[in-house]
């Protein structure tokens, strides 16, 4: 309502005196890629509870701290004892902390996509310039980035600590680089799996439970089978079994190509040939997650 005309607004109605009426917008409209970037940054901030309620900041921040504290302790020990190497390899750190990482993806993947489904916000996105693929890309990239922040931060702590302890620079930098590549792949893989599962259900609780189940049950089953194979002396089967859980996939891949020592029983990582299968499996899973998400959102529409 514009400025009230004296005839139409009796003198009693003084509350709207500063109402200056509708102003149209002639400024720039930044289009699809800007909207996609906005969705990405909103989702990334949301993955750490920023811009959301205090309650939703607690878990992601807590998990972030839990990820970094052991690294800080290791660094402190290494500096104090003047050790000539860090107690844990860069590539090994994420494998040790995999429970925390699984918990994080289980809590944040549903937060990212199930909410939009549950409150039917998705049609509002698709009534705007962005396309289905833009939405999927923004959500996937945001969760993968959030996970990369979670997994790379302790590596940075380790690296900085190692430099402070005056450990061999070239050696440490190489290990740090390998670690970053490894956690980048891990972030993409975990985020993809988490989002696919979460995008199926509008119920956040189900999403959380399902992601935890897939991550931990597959890991439990695979390591049990590997242990049995090891005990029965059929060590050659161990790498093949490792293909069936996300954690062991990353473990196998990095012990084949990124100079990691395998956490598999008997410490037998996959050979280079088997390693190629691991790489293909990881890349295939990432691509499949992306494809499944696209298919899923084609159907959601309005």
């Amino acid at each position, binding site marked *: *309502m*514009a*400025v*009230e*005309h*004296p*005839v*139409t607004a009796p003198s009693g109605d003084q509350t709207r005196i500063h*109402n*200056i*009426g*509708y*102003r*149209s*917008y002639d*400024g*720039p*409209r*930044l*289009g*699809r890629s*800007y*909207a996609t970037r*906005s*969705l990405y940054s*909103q989702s990334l901030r949301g993955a750490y509870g920023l*811009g*959301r*309620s205090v309650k*939703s900041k607690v878990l992601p921040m807590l998990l972030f701290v839990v990820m970094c504290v052991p690294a800080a302790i290791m660094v402190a020990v290494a500096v104090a004892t003047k050790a000539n190497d860090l107690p844990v390899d860069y590539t090994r750190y994420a494998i040790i902390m995999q429970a925390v990482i699984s918990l994080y993806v289980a809590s944040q993947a549903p937060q990212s996509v199930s*909410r*939009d489904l549950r*409150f*039917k*916000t998705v*049609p*509002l*996105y*698709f*009534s*705007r*310039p*962005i*396309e289905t693929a833009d939405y999927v890309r923004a959500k996937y990239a945001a969760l993968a980035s959030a996970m990369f922040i979670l997994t790379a931060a302790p590596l940075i702590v380790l690296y900085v600590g190692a430099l402070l302890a005056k450990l061999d620079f070239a050696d440490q930098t190489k290990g740090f680089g390998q670690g970053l590549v490894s956690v980048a792949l891990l972030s993409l893989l975990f985020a993809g799996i988490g989002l696919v599962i979460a995008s199926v259900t509008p119920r956040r609780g189900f999403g959380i439970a399902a992601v935890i189940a897939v991550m931990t049950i597959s890991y439990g089953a695979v390591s049990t089978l590997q242990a049995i194979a090891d005990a029965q002396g059929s060590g050659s089967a161990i790498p093949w079994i490792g293909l069936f859980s996300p954690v062991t996939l990353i473990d196998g891949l990095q012990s084949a190509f990124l100079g990691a020592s395998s956490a598999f029983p008997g410490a037998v990582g996959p050979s280079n040939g088997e390693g190629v299968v691991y790489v293909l499996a990881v890349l295939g899973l990432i691509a499949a997650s992306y494809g499944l998400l696209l298919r899923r959102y084609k159907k959601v*529409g*309005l």
Partner: protein
Amino acid sequence: MWKTGAALFDLRVTPRCPYAWSLMPRQLYGVTTGVAHVTTFDDVTVIATESLSKRFPRVTALDRLSLDVGPGVTGLVGANGAGKSTMIKILLGLSPASEGRAEVLGLDVATKGAAIRERVGYMPEHDCLPPDVSATEFVVHMARMSGLPPTAARERTADTLRHVGLYEERYRPIGGYSTGMKQRVKLAQALVHDPQLVFLDEPTNGLDPVGRDDMLGLIRRIYTDFGISVLVTSHLLGELERTCDHVVVIDGGKLLRSSSTTDFTQTTTTLAVEVTDTDEHPDGTRAVREALHARGVEVLDSTSGLPGAGHILLLTAQGEETYDVVRDVVADLGLGLVRMEQRRHHISEVFTSEDASDDQKRKEAVGHGG
């Protein structure tokens, strides 16, 4: 609407200063703002469809629909499952048509979907608001999703929320809002990027009578004050009669009728007359009926079962002279004239006259959501 508006626009300088508005009569200012905006996309029809069809495996949602919708408030009326929502989806470029073509703001829906969605707002029928964020945060996010830079998004959000009537409560989480407030937030997110056209899908759903009137008033203002054309769907014809310039009725995916609301509710055809009884004429109504008949004025049988219907004469007015005839007849008989009023045709008559043949179609459409 557009033609008369254009004439006015030529005669007057349109003042851009907000204080100048207050010097002009309100009604005039409403018309000129509309025109000022309309001129930016000239004489173009806002929505045009040409034998548009949408077939699903088991149901035909739209059946060779051809439409031309100009600037203004247009109502899209139909029973549930008549194809209203399907139509909006096609017009937003989100669902390909099986046949035919459609243009929105002169852009082809099949190829220019993204460009259309940048200039168009959409308010869905269902709930679409996350409960744990405030209206401000939510609408700012949606403004950015429409391509507005961060600062502009904030400013436009504050403006738009104020225009739809949300004040202090906009900082509280949406979860605690009443249905009426939620509808306003939904409307705000559709308007925040200052579109040229908005699609409002059943905006009065779930509102009480007062909330309904508020919402309808707001919809009217979207065009008269904001200069944004509106396509609003509803299954309640009476609401749209008051709000829209133009009404399109579809049923079973077919066009039943498309015309301006003044055509729908022509004011000239029927007159209702009520008179008093006197000792001389114990049944005044009957006396008038006979006298009118003698003068050659056609009196309709009042078959409506309303209370007091027997005391009201309905007659067809041929022109100005009919009023005089009624006046003279009543005066000659010495009766008191209680009322003589124009009976407007109700839009629902469009449905009652076609109902029989459409039952079949409606059955076919059942099972397809909205």
